[in-house]
């Protein structure tokens, strides 16, 4: 028995050593390194740098363009938030009796797996001011007066980009809601029915609680996703005109790799990490709240 214990120990150590080294070296250590770097003025290539205390933090809070960028993240968040009921409706629709539902399910998820860079270029063409398809659609319906510079008007560019984000990610949520609807165990539903539960009771006590958990997941996935929007604005507008369509992540990345201010960029990265952790903690509290409420 003792040798078996020994063998087990050796097996665990040998198997985990490489994954752990990779995880610590390339994920955990960099995260902590960001915190250290956030107190310096490192430029990304010099051998030396100074410790400048909380200067980066005060600079970050005073940076108007960064706040503007964060507000733009809010546009993505609200767009996806408003879409949750629509996504739920599609999930119910696609799990109901429906001819060709399999084909529709394939279609609804397809945007999610399409190359993000390629589709961003495709949408740049779609919204292009010269021979763009969207302007042409408006013209066909005699709505020429609505034509705008979709990607260079600071007032609307974020909504256009948020639309692209909706196009790409809504299908993912529909699939998640469908999975939640379908994961209701048939025997539980059957038992409830045998026990005399009516349709409303089934909906309230069996379907709603299980969907709520997924709604909660999608809601927080939205917050995390909105906070980290990067490639759609990066490819379609580079955050422009000016910083009109920049996002927090885009601004952070530019600060580091375009303007070589790694110290300040690290501070912003720390801010994103803090936001994500806080959001996670809040979410956990809420899930617990719902579960406790459901059990009463």
């Amino acid at each position: 028995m003792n040798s078996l214990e020994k063998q087990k120990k050796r097996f665990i150590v040998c198997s985990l050593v490489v994954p752990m080294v990779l995880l610590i070296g390339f994920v955990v250590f960099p995260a902590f390194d960001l915190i250290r770097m956030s107190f310096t003025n490192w430029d990304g290539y010099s051998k030396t740098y100074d410790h400048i205390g909380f200067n980066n933090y005060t600079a970050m809070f005073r940076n108007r363009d960064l706040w503007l960028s964060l507000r733009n993240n809010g546009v993505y968040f609200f767009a996806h938030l408003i879409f949750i009921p629509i996504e739920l409706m599609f999930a119910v629709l696609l799990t109901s009796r429906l001819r060709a539902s399999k084909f529709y399910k394939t279609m609804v998820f397809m945007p999610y797996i399409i190359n993000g860079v390629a589709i961003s270029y495709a949408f740049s063409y779609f919204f292009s001011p010269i021979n763009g398809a969207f302007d042409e659609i408006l013209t066909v319906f005699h709505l020429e007066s609505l034509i705008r510079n979709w990607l260079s008007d600071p007032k609307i560019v974020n909504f256009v980009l948020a639309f692209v984000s909706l196009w790409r990610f809504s299908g993912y949520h529909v699939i998640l809601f469908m999975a939640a609807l379908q994961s209701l165990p048939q025997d539980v539903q059957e038992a409830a029915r045998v026990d005399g539960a009516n349709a409303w009771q089934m909906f309230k006590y069996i379907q709603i609680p299980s969907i709520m958990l997924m709604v909660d997941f999608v809601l927080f996935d939205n917050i995390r996703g909105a906070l980290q929007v990067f490639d759609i604005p990066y490819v379609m507008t580079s955050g422009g005109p000016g910083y009109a369509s920049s996002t927090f992540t885009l601004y952070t990345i530019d600060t580091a790799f375009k303007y070589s201010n790694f110290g300040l960029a690290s501070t912003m990265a720390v801010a994103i990490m803090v936001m994500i952790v806080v959001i996670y903690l809040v979410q956990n509290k809420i899930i617990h709240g719902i579960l406790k409420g459901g059990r009463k």
Partner: protein
Amino acid sequence: MKRRTMEQGLKQIICIGMVLIVLAPILLTLFAAFKTKADMVNTSPLLLPPMERITLSNFQKVIGDKYLLIGFKNTGIILAVSILFNVLFGTITAFILERFEFKLKKVIMSLFFLGMLIPSFVTEIARFKIINGIGLYNTLGAPIVIYVASDLMQLYIYRQFISTLPVSLDESALLDGCSYFGLFTRIIFPLLAPATATVVIIKAITIINDMYIPYLYMPKNKLRTLTTFLMNYANAQQGSWQKLAAGIIIIMLPTILIYIFFQKYILAGIAAGAVKE
């Protein structure tokens, strides 16, 4: 009966509307890819050009670009190596975390959890220095090591799958004199094949579509991937939408094909990952 048909009709109309919105940007790009420069101006962007004027020259130009082939090759190498290690480390880590109790288990679990929580884009600011320091900058090793180390979704899928395998399986194999290593390689790993199929396909799509890591770590021309090839191609075709359109379509194709053929595995894994969280 009549209400039923009305209801079905309404449902169909809503769904067809959804399909149109999904397909519109793709189809309109495809139309543009078949047009000559003159037809980009002369014909409606909503329509194909007249049959006799359809041109394949835009596609020929993309396919003739030597960097497209290089992009395919690099993406293929990164895919194969990253996924191999993802599966290897993913299965064994999930197996150990799911089946064994040991001293540092809690610490290790929380490290992996932390790894999943940390936002990936901004971490590159600190990771860049490390990749540079170990000499992986501008090599295929950079994306490979990052994908293997930081993309951890496979742990969810594998742990969930392993929890459905009976523990008695392990016990009887060990009683029969199988070593722990043998138990893993000969019994557990083969049983994980369906989960592995899901992991391989989802990872393949994620890696093919990833723009940021190859863009940041491999600016060298020879190290273009499919996605960074398209970015370079787009910069070179400034203003000729018809040429760029052909490039967009070709770069979209691999993941669309993977999706159409392996849809079942993808949808299974997507739902599993979320439900577990």
